[in-house]
């Protein structure tokens, strides 16, 4: 054997023998905690981009620092891209952040991995009685609480008041029948313009589909003990999908059937002035206003109508929870921080910023803005996706609901075939 080869082989052998140990992801949490001085004077807080406004966080951090002498809050804004990898590595180190915002559909994954602190004992300190139901469930795992609801937003139908008026629609639709009726009237009035669409509804807008399915009394999956079972082939789910198709066909939407609301961005299309309605969050109107600043004044909103007149359909609550990593060295301080944030003062500020607050039932801060007011009212009927730890695989990966929508809307598959294929795919992801 050549000398250098011998050397390399030796190195390889040593490596193989130690690969396991060196490859272990980090030190024992207990050891990490004891080796570093407890309470090193910094509380690291990670919130996501576009979440709480800076005015809120500045005031919050200042108040916290004033109340805790010698403590400095290191506040950092994280991005959604690659957040899973970022959190994975950050949680594994001995210097994990102390408070983290985690998307509500991601929370079950982290909660089930034994990497978060159990907050069950602090629920009462954190205003537990008023927690937003749709978010609360996502932070719980096997009877313990790991996530504190932070904020949520939900969708509503955003519409052009001026167009409705011209088409002779005096009150916003309050049932599916009225909604379809409004579409007919809008088309009669503006249909001569080939670019006009009464409702912009892209083919893969599965958050909207959720509303229709829930409204029919169906669901996409059911908890079965600890596991989940997909129920896309249930009558309720099928009826919801059928209504989606009915809407697409009635509205003459020109939205792509093979893409979702983000591509192209629906608010941009609405801003173009040729669409009378779209299903979205109040915040999206700001994007539309970048194209046409005058559109804000012409925009109104109504809750997604239910098939039962006078009710609104259940809506998907999108939002975030706050968690404390197990590896955080300042558990007590972190809990204090959560306590401050979950108090009435900052919750009302969250509401004023246009979010449904997570730990307060007082949504009066949202009433100032008519669009947010509608959202807040609908949020009472807010629901969440199945709290499976593997739900993240559905959302970040190949979402069977999207494939199902495209296949059914384009006529590639029948209703039965589309739903049963998607059901099998969903079962493969979260079932068992």
């Amino acid at each position, binding site marked *: 054997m050549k000398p250098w080869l011998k050397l390399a082989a030796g190195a390889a052998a040593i490596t193989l023998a130690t690969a396991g140990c060196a490859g272990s992801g980090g030190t024992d949490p207990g050891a990490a905690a004891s080796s570093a001085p407890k309470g090193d004077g910094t509380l690291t807080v990670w919130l*996501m981009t576009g979440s709480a406004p800076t005015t809120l966080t500045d005031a919050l951090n200042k108040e916290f620092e004033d109340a805790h002498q010698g403590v400095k809050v290191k506040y950092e804004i994280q991005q959604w891209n690659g957040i899973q990898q970022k959190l994975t590595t950050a949680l594994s180190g001995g210097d994990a952040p102390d408070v983290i915002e985690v998307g509500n559909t991601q929370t079950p994954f982290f909660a089930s991995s034994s990497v978060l602190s159990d907050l069950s004992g602090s629920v009462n300190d954190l205003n537990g009685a008023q927690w937003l139901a749709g978010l609360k469930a996502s932070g719980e795992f096997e009877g313990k609480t790991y996530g504190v609801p932070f904020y949520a937003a939900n969708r509503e139908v955003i519409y052009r008041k001026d167009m409705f008026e011209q088409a002779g629609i005096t009150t916003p639709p309050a049932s599916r029948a009225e909604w379809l009726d409004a579409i007919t009237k809008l088309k009669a009035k503006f249909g001569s313009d080939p670019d006009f669409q009464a409702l912009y509804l892209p083919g893969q807008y599965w958050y909207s589909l959720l509303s229709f399915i829930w409204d029919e009394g169906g669901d996409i999956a059911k908890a079965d003990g600890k596991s989940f079972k997909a129920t896309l082939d249930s009558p309720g789910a099928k009826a919801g999908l059928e209504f989606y198709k009915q809407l697409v066909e009635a509205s003459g939407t020109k939205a792509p059937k093979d893409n979702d609301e983000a591509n192209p*961005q629906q608010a941009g299309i609405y801003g173009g002035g040729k669409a009378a309605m779209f299903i979205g969050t109040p*915040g999206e109107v700001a994007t539309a206003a970048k194209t046409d600043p005058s559109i804000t004044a012409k925009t109104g909103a109504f809750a997604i109508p239910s098939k039962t007149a006078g009710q609104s359909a259940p809506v998907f609550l999108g939002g975030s929870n706050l968690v404390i990593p197990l590896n955080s060295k300042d558990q007590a301080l972190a809990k204090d921080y959560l306590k401050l944030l979950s108090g009435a003062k900052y919750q009302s500020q969250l509401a004023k910023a246009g979010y449904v607050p997570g730990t307060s039932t007082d949504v009066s801060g949202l009433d100032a803005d008519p669009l947010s007011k509608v959202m807040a009212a609908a949020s009472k009927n807010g629901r969440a996706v199945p709290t499976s730890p593997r739900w993240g695989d559905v959302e970040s990966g190949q979402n069977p609901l999207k494939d199902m929508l495209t296949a059914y809307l384009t006529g590639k598959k029948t209703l039965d075939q589309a739903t049963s294929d998607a059901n099998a795919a969903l079962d493969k992801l979260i079932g068992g």
Partner: protein
Amino acid sequence: MKKSMPQRIGLGVIGVFAALLFGFPTYWLFTTSLKTPGQVLSPEYDLLPSSATFANFTSALTKPGFFTFLSNSLIVTLGAVLCALVAGVLAAVPLARMRFRGRKGFLLLVLVAQLAPVEALFIPMYLLMRDAGLLNTLPSLLLVYFATTLPFTVWMLYGFVNGIPYDLEEAAMIDGCSRAGAFRRVTLPLLGPGLVTTSVFSFITAWNEFLFALVFMRDQSKQTLPVWLSSFRTAFSVDWGGVMAASVVYAIPALVFFLIVQRKLVSGMTAGAVKG
């Protein structure tokens, strides 16, 4: 080779056509960066933009931290390219010009190293950097980019050195040059085009890397441009106009880098011709 007029025009037309084809997506990106969200995808036929707004550029460039990220990116990228070139040339020369024990093994290593699944290595790399105490420092990124572009650089430069006739160096040595001198005066200038393509490649690879930058750099002040670029996305919306404007800005350093080195592409060639 002399070409007739029609031939030249024909070639020119083909060249322009190819440029149009390859330039179109970039052109489209550029015009998009001048559009409002409503114009990005609109029913109108907008091959030529009817109006332009620079709002996207303003919002992109005034986004906090742009210049910090830019300088971080430049440090990491240029550092990695430079290190890879130096180590690459040093290794390529003995590979091509000398015979020594283990040469074949080293060659094999360089080849196989390029098969390494770099993206899948992110956990082991993370652990390595953590144990070395380099996390959250620019050198950790520099090292990763250096490592990922090095095997390629060695391999490419080895090919290029090999392509330069050894007779030229020999002739110089007969004229009294030392071996190193002969290399510096004869081979290195001829290596120009090779150095250019390799360095442009390394530059772009490192310039675009996202995952390692995101995971290794905890502090925001140490992030690089690709991470900044993805910050235009929030939970409920993406500022696509901003992304496109930022991308235009972002591609400029790579272009400048190319324009600087592309002169070398020609001068290296002529230098070779004179000496040869």
